[in-house]
């Protein structure tokens, strides 16, 4: 064992030395004389920081306001079974697929897919555009949460949280369209949100993304644990926990429940929209990918269980206070966060603290996810144009912030946010994931090569079962969920919004992402781009040399 250890160590050092030598050779030959080493790709300074950042990306608003309701609606305690099956059979395998692509091909989504195969580049751009759409509205929810952290102190919503949210705070227009009637109470916090996020993006992978996650993620976990402890001691909390954990075994026979579990896992783990490809491209060459991925996957789910306990204990208190059942007060998403929770904050002992903890958690969970979403776009521009970190960060973040500030802090922003969210999730993320697994597994047949890469640098080996899960289970499940989404959105106009509105900002937006991805793929990679990066060429040469030995 010791001898093997030494051999591996020696091979690693030799490969590393060879890699440095090849970089120098390429560098010297390109200019005719030795020059300074090229600026290498940014790298997470430690595996721990990568894991923290990946967890920060995965743990987002959905963990807090989506999972508890999805679990409750789909069998309560029994939902744990499809949830765990979905996590192990699709979530984690697809997470590893993203890791393998990003780490092996060491690039942003478009560059990594391009290096995988020329025809796959369009998938990367599709994911970049999906991230653009999500980024412009995700920031708005963080801004709302920031304001509600403050509102919790004064309980600014008074006796009518619902009326306050849509009336006083958002000033939602009755006409459903896109207008520019700005709401200052949302515009300014959104501007502050973008200023913070742009600062993080400009600072780069180590000084920005890593540091933000190293601060915000532990803070989020501590705040949320305090919130959960506070919630479970509220009167009626037991009723909420009973509602959340009591199993409805019959639900396991319903395909819709299984689809809900798989659908939730896809969204929750941040797979298949470029984030994990981008983050893993910043890893050192000898990083344990699968071991790290297991931690990320289970940490994300661990937080969801915590969120379920905290949210349903609080909802139990709300029902107890209103003299109703938990089922009558349980709602998902925006309704839970900005209407139900303020009601709880108003009535609970130490309610202000509870509100600050809850909305502060949303802010931190949101920011760590938003920076990962934005990083997909920044890295793509950086790779395609060969720009510096600062230049690419500013060139991406400022226009994205501008569009976000133009469209969402308005009286009609809520309608647009709702529509973008519903359609980009289904026909951006899910559709993109389906096309990606079919192309990579069945047309390009790259899974054996990617599993070899995972096994070369990882502690948990991936082979036959992983290939079967990615090539068979994932497409079947994704196809089923996507078909259901398509059928339901065709059957009736989403939320009863005008047909033209859904046509333009729902279906039209989703279609524009595909067209945009095709157009971006047609733009040639410039000489300054990272496509012909000497660092990557040297790394490939070193890997090949190591394999031949």
């Amino acid at each position, binding site marked *: *064992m010791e001898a*093997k*250890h030494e051999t*591996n*160590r020696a091979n*690693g*050092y030799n490969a*590393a030395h060879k890699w440095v030598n090849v970089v120098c050779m390429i560098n010297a030959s390109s200019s005719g004389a030795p020059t300074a080493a090229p600026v290498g790709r940014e790298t997470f300074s*430690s*595996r*721990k920081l990568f894991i923290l950042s990946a967890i920060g990306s995965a743990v987002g608003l959905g963990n807090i306001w989506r999972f508890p309701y999805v679990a409750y609606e789909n069998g*309560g*305690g*029994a939902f*744990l079974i499809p949830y*765990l099956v979905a996590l192990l059979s699709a979530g984690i395998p697809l997470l590893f697929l993203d890791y393998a692509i990003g780490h092996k091909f060491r690039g942003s989504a478009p560059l990594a897919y391009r290096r995988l195969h020329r025809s796959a580049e369009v998938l990367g751009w599709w994911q970049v555009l999906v991230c653009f759409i999500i980024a412009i509205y995700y920031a708005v929810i963080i801004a709302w949460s920031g304001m509600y952290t403050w509102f919790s102190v004064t309980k600014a919503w008074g006796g009518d949280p619902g009326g306050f949210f849509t009336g006083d705070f958002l000033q939602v227009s009755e006409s459903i369209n896109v207008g520019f009637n700005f709401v200052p109470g949302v515009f300014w916090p959104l501007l502050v949100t973008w200023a913070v996020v742009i600062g993080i993006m400009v600072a780069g992978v180590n000084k920005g993304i890593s540091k933000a996650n190293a601060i915000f993620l532990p803070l989020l976990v501590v705040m949320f644990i305090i919130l959960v402890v506070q919630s479970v001691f509220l009167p009626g909390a*037991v009723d909420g*926990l*009973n509602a*959340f*954990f*009591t*199993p409805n075994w019959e639900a396991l026979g319903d395909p819709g429940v299984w689809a809900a579990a798989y659908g939730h896992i896809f969204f929750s783990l941040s797979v298949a929209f470029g984030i994990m490809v981008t983050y893993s491209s910043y890893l*050192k*060459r*000898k*990083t*344990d990918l699968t*071991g*790290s991925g*297991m*931690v990320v*996957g*289970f*940490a994300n*789910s*661990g937080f*969801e*269980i915590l969120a379920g*306990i905290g949210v349903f204990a609080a909802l139990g208190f709300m029902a107890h206070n209103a003299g109703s059942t938990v089922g009558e007060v349980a709602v998902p998403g925006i309704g839970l966060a900005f209407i139900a929770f303020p009601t709880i904050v108003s009535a609970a002992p130490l309610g202000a603290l509870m509100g600050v903890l809850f909305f502060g958690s949303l802010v931190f969970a949101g920011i760590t996810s938003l920076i990962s979403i934005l990083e997909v776009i920044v890295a793509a521009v950086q790779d395609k144009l060969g720009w510096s970190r600062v230049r690419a960060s500013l060139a991406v973040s400022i226009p994205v912030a501008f569009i976000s500030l133009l469209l969402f802090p308005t009286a009609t922003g809520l309608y647009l946010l709702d529509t973008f969210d519903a359609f980009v999730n289904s026909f951006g993320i899910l559709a993109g994931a389906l096309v990606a697994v079919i192309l990579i597994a069945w047309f390009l047949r790259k899974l054996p090569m990617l599993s070899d890469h995972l096994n*070369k*640098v*990882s*502690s*948990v*080996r*991936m*082979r*036959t*079962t*992983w290939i079967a899960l990615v090539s068979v289970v994932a497409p079947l499940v994704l196809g089923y969920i996507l078909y259901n989404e398509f059928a339901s959105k065709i059957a009736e106009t989403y939320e009863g919004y005008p047909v033209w509105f859904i046509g333009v900002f729902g279906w039209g937006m989703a279609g524009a992402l595909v067209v945009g991805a095709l157009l971006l793929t047609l733009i040639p990679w410039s000489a300054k781009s990272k496509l012909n990066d000497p660092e990557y060429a040297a790394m490939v040469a070193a890997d090949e040399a190591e394999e031949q030995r």
Partner: protein
Amino acid sequence: MTPIAIVMMIIAMVTVWGGLILALINLVRHPEDEGHLPETIAREL
């Protein structure tokens, strides 16, 4: 809480948080090192 809800809560905590602890133990057993690959390899999935 009802007995069945308590049982399901414990199962959920043990499987998910236990899975996290096992994943962390596996990671600790394979410390980060630029110079070598993992020595002990877990069972193939």
